[in-house]
């Protein structure tokens, strides 16, 4: 894969992530059925639910991993692409990219949580958890940001811009 392809793929995946970010957060990711109530939960709703049920640490992790991290990744990647070819802040960009790659897979924690819940939380009339369409969008969002960061390689940071290389 050439460097330009890498850049292009990463860029397009970033754009996809931006697009997907809206449905992923607006559409419910799961439906929880408890005696007396049926609730459709979005990602943020899930965090709220966890927080309300007293699981503050878990809520914090899920909030970080599911909402903050994708958002940060989108911003960070945007910054990387915006500064592509520039020779400024190269060390900082390296650090940011390394961090992005490292935390990338953590964003899947919400999907992981959901799949466990959906598998375990089948208690008939007592309780039930069902994944909803939102989870697919969310999943796609995470994958987009993940691969976007993954395809973008560190040496691209050190590449001179096309204009300057000539």
């Amino acid at each position: 894969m050439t460097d330009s392809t890498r850049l292009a793929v990463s860029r397009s995946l970033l754009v996809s992530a931006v697009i997907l970010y809206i449905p992923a957060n607006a559409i419910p990711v799961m439906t929880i059925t408890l005696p007396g109530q049926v609730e459709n939960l979005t990602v943020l709703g899930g965090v709220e639910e966890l927080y309300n049920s007293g699981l503050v640490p878990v809520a914090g992790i899920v909030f970080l991993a599911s909402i903050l991290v994708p958002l940060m990744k989108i911003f960070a990647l945007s910054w990387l692409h915006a500064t592509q070819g520039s020779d400024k802040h190269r060390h900082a960009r390296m650090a940011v990219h390394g961090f992005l790659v490292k935390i990338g897979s953590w964003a899947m924690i919400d999907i992981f949580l959901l799949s466990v819940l959906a598998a375990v939380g089948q208690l008939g009339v007592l309780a039930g958890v069902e994944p909803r369409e939102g989870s697919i969008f969310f999943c796609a969002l995470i994958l987009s940001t993940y691969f976007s960061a993954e395809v973008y390689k560190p040496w691209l940071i050190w590449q001179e811009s096309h204009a300057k290389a000539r």
Partner: protein
Amino acid sequence: MNTDDSQPSPPVDLGEVVRVKKNPTLWVWIFPLLAAAAAGWFFYQEIESLGPTIEVTFEETPGIAEGKTRLTYRGVESGTVEAVTLDKELGGVVVKIRLKKFAAGLATRDTVFWIERPVFNLAEMTGIESIVVGNSIQASTPGGPPRTRFEGDSKPPLVSLKPGYFTVNLQGDDVPFLNKGAPVYHRGIKAGFVRSKSLDGSGDAVIELSLAPEFRSTVRTTSRFWSLPASRFTFGQHGFDIEIEGIDALVQGAISYDHFDREGMEASANLLFPILPTEFSARCSGTLLSVSFENGQGLLPGQTTVNYLGHPVGIVENVTVDPTTSTLAATLRLEPAHENLARADSIFRIVRPSVSLDGVTGLDTLLTGAYIALEPGSSDSLATTFQGASSDTTSAAAHAEGGLQITLRSDDIPGLGKGTPLLHKGIVAGTVLEKTLDPSGTPLLRAVINPAYQNIVTTQTRFWRFAATSVKAGPGVLEVELENLKSLIHGGISFDAFGAKGTPSEPGAEFRLYKTHAAAKAVSPPVRIQFKNGRGLVAWRTEVRYLGVPVGLVENVETGNGSVTATVRFDNGHETLRRKGSIYSVVRPNISLQGITGLETLVSGVYIECIPGDSTATTDFFVGRSTIESEEILHGGLTLKLTAPETPITAGAPIVYRGITVGRVVEKNLSSDSRSIVLTIIIDRQYAHLVRTTSRFWNSSGLKASLGILKFRIDAESVVSQGGRISLATPETSPLAPKAKSGASFELFSTPEPVWMKWNPSIPQN
């Protein structure tokens, strides 16, 4: 490029300049495109599925939440609550519901909305699914022009608005235990339900039934409707029987109908049917018969059946009193299949439990209640009006002819009545004809004695009644007496002359009816006994016993002059008890430190014990004695008098010789000059020889304690003696002093002289 320039350079293939794609990675933009398409498609779907918004006003909306509560129509999620707000006057809740597009048809004029929530009571259990998915708003619509504002109901509509349901109206005097929604059955199949229950203008209960269209043909002009009780509990000779129609009928009750295969027209709409109490009464749909009875005891409308050969074929529908003829008119209906039994000469007879000379009849009615037995006649013509008969009018009347009629008089005659048997030595000799009051108000029994036993009844004959059962309890005896089955129901009357001779009784003679056998048997002239205390004496109950055997009965107990006088009659053959000097004493339970006596009277009640005197002269007045007195007299002891200035000893105190009780203080009186106290004591006959003219008596009661260096002794025996204790010692003289005579007087010392204690004479028995 410098040296090679001179040589003719071979043509160099510099290649063709191909235009390089400006952006070879354009394909990567497929990712954002896909993402955008998917998101767009999804949002488009969502928006596309949205139908119109409607507003429903409820009084209150428990469990309704924005964005969560669903609108369900026929179980399908048809919309979602978008907003819940109060109206401007705060008088209701406006719920905005976003319908789904496919459910847009719900926004029509006649749609009914209600809040579905779990309802639990005995009669119904609805909205179970609300427990799982939460309360929801339900809708039901028959269609109609569009509309967007609705009034919601707080309760689900009772009638699921199913088309084709038709209405049947029932009317009845009272409609027990039937609620809205109670099921209606046709031959066990649920055909509909009770739609409403109300009163019409005339005050009759009207029930509106809603029946499914497929049952239209089952409702005929000949249909009969009856109410099924929530559950029925029958008790009869065959045991218990519980009938429950169905679980929903268990609590709510139900209505059932059938036309019993009698073809009729299909009922027109809004025909008014009567509602009948039971299935059987519904079955009995024949023509109305009227039967008049002189006595309608036991006839219950809607319950009393008409039996033919023991099988119920009809039912009493109504019972009214005819004031003009003072008879009871029962209207009854027979089953259509048995209507031909109502022939002109058929007999309707009330069967009740009855005890008569013929034996016991109608015993089954004890359990089932009275019924009317139908004995069809042979006539061909049918009739609708009959003269009823009663099962117990016949036999008694038959016996009344030719027998000896007598009258029995008593203060009260409970349980006795027409048909009560009169027994002589266990043989049924007659029967009671009627029970009336004489002009002065005392109850009378008119009875008849069979001709065969007529001669037994003499002027001396005594009549007594015996209870159906009697229980006799005494020491060692518990006897339950069951007279024969006939008397089990009413008890009966017995008579006997107890050996007394008399002239045969005249017809119409009047006799006294004694309460018990013992009372009747005690026929001798009365004896009056005066007691100081009449506690426990009961007229007609307290027995007089001789050597423990009952020989008479207290007839009357009256008080006067500070004493109680009991009038006693003896059975024949106990004339010796009338002798002068006979002793009468009341035996009561007596529990004291000396022992327990008269314990049997705890069970049998007190009785009067009597001991005949020796005199040949007789009297009819005696003074009763206390038990102790009579016992001493009975045993023929030695009566002595002890005098003392004062003494704590009272009557009942024992006289002790060497620790053995040899006698008893019977009486404590002041001496005739009031200067000292005189105790009357009785020494038992077997110990009489111990008392010599030189004997000494002293008061040995009280706590005696002797304290020595080596012993500390308390004589506690004296403590337990009731009323103190008197000790007796006789000096050792040779020869012994002569025996004390009855009535002799001794001094009672308060303390003994020590030498008395050492006396140890040898006293022979005689």
